[in-house]
């Protein structure tokens, strides 16, 4: 029983998407603040939640809330140092057969709002709905190796796979994609819901949501499991990391996580009563250059853009030199990392390529989320491209707008700067750069048959190291095509008030109930 030895987690896991190198700030009861706040854990987050349906989630805040409010079979432990999967709402998991994952839920886990008990039917509904073409779940690719979930009892069932995919469990089911929703509640909402979760379980439940102002979670009286030290969790939407830092030093926030750019100055000039440390993430940041856009169709133009940009300078400006230039989607130390393949800047070559392509007076647009860090990076890219005669129009957007994409926007994608939440399994980011995902998550409009063949090969390769080799080739292809300029895997700075022990994952992401008051 228990966790099969085969899937001992590598450092980190999370589904692709929105994680932005922004301040995610978590607050705890303000030390020295009025007594009312003593039981509150206040957290500044980059934005309001948008979609709390696991099928559509997009932003970091969506992810936080889905991870903290919905049950899952297993999840990463809030260990803070090591990525470790532990059982969550499942009593046991048997993975001895790679084609059939057998699970048993803990009895007595109640859905808030009178939707009864968490059952195997909910699991079946939650996972299989991603395969429903009408739902157009953005997680459909992740669940593509799922055959069905067979319910064998009130609490028991078998997750049947189409092929021996080693990655469905390790990277999807234990993270955001594995969120289980209440079948009864979802059906009542016609299967579609947005910023209001249908029914939740767990130590906290939604108390109030004032968009643009705050979102408050309170203790769930029906919860019998492990619970946190704080009565309320308050999420404050503060999009900019510097604003969050200011709020922290003004005593308004007591836990925050943001880009490492200010690490030196923070260390030198720490806010009162704070503890500061750095965490490593495997969240890849890259510049996407959309191959299908008429201005960028010529591969020489895209390669020229790659060569014109000064990545080390961007890193120095945005993360104070604490991050290393990335060579791909996969972070250092994981299978598939391309050691020593950092792209070198070559302005002359870039000019040459542009001249060959006859691209004079090119004017392109760069989309990015409006944070200080991205703005800084974008302005450097703008200056770099100006050197080779490309005019860059900066289009800073709010996080919600940036991540929402429709047909019109997909057709008008030019260049964008973004980070995805990393995953130790390279597959889970790499699987999105296929033809079917153009206009969905493949904003780069990258398409290559050989790449898709390699992807299928990786899916059924059981050996992690062998998969890693395939990933290296795939990332090389992405880079050569000129559609991807890999920038970094960002480190983050965590700042928290003294007198508390933050409950965080190894990359500093908060697990609400694991925050403890220090004795």
């Amino acid at each position, binding site marked *: 029983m228990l966790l099969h030895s085969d899937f001992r987690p590598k450092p980190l896991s999370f589904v692709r998407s929105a994680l932005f190198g922004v301040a995610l700030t978590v607050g705890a009861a303000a030390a020295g603040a009025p007594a009312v706040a003593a039981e509150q854990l206040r957290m500044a987050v980059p934005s309001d939640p948008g979609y709390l349906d696991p099928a559509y989630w997009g932003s970091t805040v969506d992810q936080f809330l889905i991870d903290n409010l919905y049950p899952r079979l297993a999840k990463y432990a809030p260990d803070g140092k090591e990525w470790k999967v532990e059982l969550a709402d499942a009593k046991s998991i048997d993975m001895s057969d790679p084609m059939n994952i057998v699970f048993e839920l803990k009895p007595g886990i109640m859905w808030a709002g009178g939707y009864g008990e968490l059952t195997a039917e909910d699991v079946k509904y939650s996972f299989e709905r991603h395969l429903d073409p*009408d739902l157009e779940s953005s997680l459909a690719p992740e669940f593509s190796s799922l055959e069905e979930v067979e319910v064998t009892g009130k609490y028991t069932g078998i997750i049947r796979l189409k092929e021996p995919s080693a990655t469905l469990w390790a990277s999807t089911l234990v993270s955001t994609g594995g969120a289980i929703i209440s079948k009864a509640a979802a059906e009542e909402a016609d299967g579609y819901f947005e910023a209001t979760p249908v029914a939740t379980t767990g130590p906290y439940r939604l108390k109030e*949501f004032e968009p643009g102002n705050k979102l408050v979670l309170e203790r769930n009286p029906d919860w019998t499991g492990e619970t946190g030290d704080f009565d309320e969790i308050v999420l404050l939407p503060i999009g900019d990391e510097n604003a969050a830092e200011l709020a922290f030093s003004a005593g308004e926030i007591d836990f925050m996580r943001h880009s490492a750019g200010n690490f030196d100055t923070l260390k030198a000039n720490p806010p009162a009563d704070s503890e500061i440390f750095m965490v490593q993430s495997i969240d890849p940041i890259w510049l996407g250059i959309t191959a299908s856009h008429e201005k960028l169709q010529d591969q020489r133009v895209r390669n020229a853009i790659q060569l014109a940009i000064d990545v080390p300078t961007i890193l120095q400006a945005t993360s104070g030199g604490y991050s290393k230039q990335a060579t791909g989607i996969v972070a250092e130390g994981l299978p598939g990392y391309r050691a020593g393949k950092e792209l070198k800047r070559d302005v002359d070559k870039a000019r040459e390529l542009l001249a060959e392509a006859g691209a004079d007076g090119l004017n392109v647009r760069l989309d990015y989320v409006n944070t200080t860090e991205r703005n800084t990076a974008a302005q450097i890219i703008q200056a770099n491209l100006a050197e080779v005669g490309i005019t860059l129009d900066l289009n800073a957007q709010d996080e919600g707008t940036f991540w929402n994409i429709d047909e019109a926007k997909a057709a008008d994608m030019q260049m964008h700067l973004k980070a995805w939440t990393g995953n130790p399994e390279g597959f889970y980011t790499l699987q999105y750069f296929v033809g079917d995902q153009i206009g969905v998550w493949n904003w780069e409009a990258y398409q290559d048959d050989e790449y898709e063949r390699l992807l299928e090969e990786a899916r059924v390769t059981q050996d992690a190291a062998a998969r890693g080799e395939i990933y290296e080739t795939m990332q090389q292809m992405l880079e050569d095509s000129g559609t991807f300029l890999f920038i970094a895997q960002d480190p983050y700075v965590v700042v928290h008030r003294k007198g508390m022990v933050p409950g965080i994952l190894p990359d500093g992401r908060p697990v609400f109930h694991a925050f403890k008051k220090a004795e």
Partner: protein
Amino acid sequence: MFAYVVRRIGLGFLVLILAISSLYILVQAAPGDPASAMLGPRATPAIKEAFRERLGLDQPLPVQIVKYLWSVAQGDLGTDLKSKQPVWNTLAIHLPRTIELLAAAIVIAAGFGIPLGCMAAVRRNSAFDRIVGVLSVSIIAVPAVVIAIYGMLIFSAGLGWLPAIGAGEDGGILSILHHLILPAIAVGIGWVGYLARLVRASMIEVLSANYIRNARAFGLKERWIIYRYALRIAVAPTVTVLGIGVGIMLGSAVFAEIVFARPGIGKLMYDAVILRNYPVTLGAVLAATLILIVSTTLSDILNAIIDPRFKESGE
């Protein structure tokens, strides 16, 4: 007179309707589909269609405008696309924060501006008068955003005396007042100078008026004359100006709300515009207009109370 009032009010309504309609057109003309923007990345075409139908976005623009005006007339501002609550509920969270900010700003402006102007008028052409004169012109010239940022730089980030973000609405009245200080100064301080000049000018006029001369001739104490009679009359134009000035203060409030991450109409509007949450955008502009109307009316009433001459001429 009655006909004039009716005509004036009618014109006001017409302007309001035109203002709402033109804003509706502008907001709807924005590129991008509110359905996609609000429903998120993977909403199916059917869901988007249902959304458009529900909001009446599939109808011709004039029909949409008439429908919107009609529902506004019935007190329905539509649904906040984000929270799925009536726009009224969203406004109910933010509007009081802006109103308290404006009220605090007015208290600061009047509390400092009127005494300064009064003293300057009494000591006309003294050094004090000249200093107030230069200062008042100077303070008017400093943009609210600059004052807000300096307030934050010095008192929040630097000294840590005053809060940097929020409105402190969870911490009771003291917390709310504490959070109000810096934003209210940012919005109100420019008006200190303005009011001082205004009060000074009208005070000088009043002090030279016949009945004040008469009062002096009757041997009333100078101090009594100034504070009991002259000031009351001299303050009247201040009230009118503040009533109209609320429109400008609303603009300053936007900066104060953004710099101090304070909930309020300005911040609400800023967020709503970015997210294409147009029922909220329209609702917020409506609310701002409403604040303007209410404040001008209030200033007229106050004027009548303060300055008896005003009442007489009104009768």
